[in-house]
C-alpha cells in the first residue's frame, strides 16, 4: 500500500514529542508496539495519527503494558523489521526486563525515553531516574537537550543501531515536559532525505528468512552465557563509538548540524566546568557565559552519548580543568551519582589533577535555577583556588530544609 509524503517547512514549531514522532514517520518504521504513559504518550499517539492519515505503512500494535510493548518490538525486530517505541518512568521500569532481552538478542530497536521521575512519591515531571535505571541494560543511549536534537538523534539512533557490526538497540532520551512539551523551532529534513540517511532496513538472521530458519531467544547456562555477554560488551566497547562518529559526520554533511559524543561549550580555556545532561546544559551554558563576563573561566560539558560511556573523550576534555562538577538528576540511592562515578573513573589512574565534586539536583522536575549554577560555579572556583575540594563530595542543590552533603 502506498503512503503519502508530508510537506514540511524548513523550520517547524515542534515540541520534543512531535519531533520524535516525525522522525519515526520519516524513518518509516515497520512495527511500533506501544503503551501510553506521561509524558511520552504524544510520540506514539503522533505516530498512530500519521498511520491513520496514511503517512506511514507500518503496523501499530496496541498492547496491554510496556512489558508487552517492548516484547512486541523484540518479536518484530527478530522477524526482521525496523522497530521503535516510546515510554517513560514507571512504564520503562516495567519494560526493563525486556530491555536486557533486546540487547542480548542483538536486536536493533529505537526506544524514545521521555525522562521522568520514578515513584514513590508519584511524579510525572522530568528527572533522569529512568535514564539511569537502564544504564547497564546494554542499550546504546543518546541524550537530546532540545526538540531539534530529539528529532536528529532518532535518525542517528536507527543508523547506528541497525548497522550489522553493531546490532544493539538504542535509546534516545529527552527531558520530560521541558523538552517533550515545549515547542521550539526545529530544522526539518525532507522525507526522502531523512529516509535516505537512515537507509533501507537490512535484515540479519531474521525469522522471516524461511530459507535459513533460526531460533531466537535461546537459553544458555554457565557453559555459554558468559561468552555471549562478553561478546556483547566487547562490541559495545569497540564497535559502537566509531559508528556513532561516522553517523554524526554523515549527518553533519547532510544537515550542517554537528554532534559530538561529548559536547563542549567554552571549554578550551576553562578553569571550572559543569558536566550535565538534558535541558540543564542550556541553563548551564547561559550561566557560564554570565560568569565569564565576571572574569571566571567557566565551561560546560553536555553528555550526548551516555552509553557506551565516552571515557576517553570525557577524560580528554576534563583532564586539564581545575575543578569540575558532575550534576546528577537522579536520587543516588546510597552511592555517589552516576556521572560523578563515570567521570572519576575516566580520570582515575591518570596524571590529571582535576578536582571533582558531585551535585544531586532537579528531582521530580524541580527547576535548576540560574542562581543555583552561579553558586555552583563560585564553589568550583573556590575549589580551584584552594587546590582541593572545600565542600563534601556530594551535595544536594535546590532542596528545601537543612543543607544535605555527604562523602
Amino acid at each position, binding site marked *: 500500500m502506498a503512503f503519502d509524503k508530508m510537506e514540511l517547512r524548513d523550520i517547524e514549531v515542534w515540541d520534543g514529542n512531535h519531533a520524535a514522532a516525525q522522525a519515526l514517520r520519516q524513518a518509516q518504521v515497520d512495527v511500533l508496539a506501544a503503551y501510553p504513559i506521561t509524558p511520552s504518550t504524544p510520540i506514539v499517539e503522533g505516530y498512530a495519527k500519521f498511520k491513520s492519515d496514511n503517512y506511514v505503512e507500518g503496523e501499530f500494535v496496541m498492547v496491554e503494558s510496556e512489558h508487552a510493548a517492548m516484547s512486541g518490538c523484540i518479536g518484530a525486530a527478530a522477524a526482521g523489521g525496523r522497530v521503535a517505541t516510546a515510554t517513560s518512568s514507571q512504564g520503562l521500569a516495567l519494560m526493563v526486563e525486556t530491555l536486557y532481552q533486546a540487547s*542480548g*538478542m*542483538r*536486536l536493533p530497536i529505537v526506544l524514545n525515553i521521555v525522562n521522568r521521575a520514578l515513584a514513590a512519591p508519584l511524579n510525572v515531571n522530568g528527572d533522569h531516574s529512568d535514564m539511569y535505571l537502564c544504564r547497564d541494560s546494554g542499550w546504546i543511549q543518546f541524550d537530546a537537550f532540545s526538540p531539534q536534537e530529539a528529532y536528529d538523534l532518532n535518525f542517528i539512533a536507527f543508523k547506528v543501531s541497525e548497522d550489522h557490526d553493531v*546490532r544493539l538497540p538504542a535509546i534516545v532520551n529527552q527531558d520530560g515536559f521541558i523538552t517533550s512539551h515545549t515547542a521550539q523551532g526545529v530544522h526539518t529534513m525532507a522525507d526522502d532525505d531523512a529516509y535516505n540517511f537512515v537507509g533501507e532496513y537490512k535484515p540479519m*538472521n531474521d525469522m522471516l528468512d524461511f*530459507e*535459513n*530458519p*533460526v*531460533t*531466537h*531467544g*535461546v537459553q*544458555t547456562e554457565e557453559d*555459554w552465557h*558468559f*561468552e*555471549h555477554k*562478553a*561478546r*556483547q560488551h*566487547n*562490541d559495545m566497547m569497540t564497535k559502537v563509538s566509531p559508528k556513532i562518529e561516522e553517523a554524526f559526520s554523515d549527518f553533519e554533511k547532510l544537515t550542517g548540524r554537528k554532534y559530538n559524543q561529548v559536547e563542549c561549550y567554552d571549554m578550551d580555556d576553562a578553569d571550572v566546568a559543569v558536566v550535565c545532561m538534558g535541558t540543564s546544559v542550556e541553563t548551564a551554558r547561559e550561566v557560564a557565559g554570565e560568569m565569564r563576563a565576571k572574569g571566571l573561566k567557566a565551561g560546560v560539558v553536555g553528555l550526548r552519548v551516555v552509553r557506551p560511556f565516552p571515557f576517553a573523550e570525557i577524560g580528554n576534555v576534563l583532564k586539564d580543568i581545575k575543578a569540575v562538577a558532575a550534576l546528577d538528576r537522579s536520587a543516588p540511592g546510597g552511592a555517589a551519582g552516576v556521572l560523578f562515578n563515570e567521570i572519576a573513573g575516566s580520570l582515575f589512574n591518570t596524571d590529571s589533577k582535576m578536582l571533582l565534586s558531585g551535585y544531586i539536583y532537579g528531582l521530580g522536575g524541580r527547576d535548576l535555577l540560574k542562581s543555583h549554577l552561579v553558586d555552583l560555579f563560585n564553589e568550583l572556583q573556590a575549589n580551584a583556588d584552594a587546590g582541593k575540594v572545600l565542600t563534601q563530595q556530594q551535595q544536594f542543590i535546590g532542596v528545601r530544609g537543612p543543607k544535605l552533603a555527604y562523602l
Partner: protein
Amino acid sequence: MANKGWDEFEIGAMLRSFDGKIDECSAFTPQRDRNYSQNNSHVASVADWRLIKPVFNKDYCIDCQFCWIYCPDVSIISRDKKLIGVDMDHCKGCGICVEVCPTNPKSLLMFPEQADEETELANWPAKDEEK
C-alpha cells in the same frame, strides 16, 4: 558442541536449525535425511530430567495416531502411519500420549525411568472389562 571462545560464534545467541539453506521441498524430506545443524536439538538429548517414561506395546496399538498428534515434543515416531516407538532423546515423560490412547488396555503406559521394558511388557495389564 565445541567449546568456542566469545569471538567465535554468531551474535545474539541465535541458533541455526540447519546447516546451509533449505528449500521449499524440505517439508517433504524425511527427518532422518534433513541437514540439521549441531545446534539443533534433533541431535541432542534433551530428556535427561525425565522421571517416568512411556512404554509402547504394539500388540494393542490400532495406529490411530492420537499420540503422534498430541505429543508436544514430536517424540512419537511414526512411519507410514504406523507407530513404531518413542524418541527417548526428546520425550519429557509428560504422559499425554498415554492419556489420549483409546485402546483397552492402553498401548502406551507410563513407568518409572529405571523400569525394565521387557518386564513391563510381559506384565502388561489385561483388558479392563466394562461393568
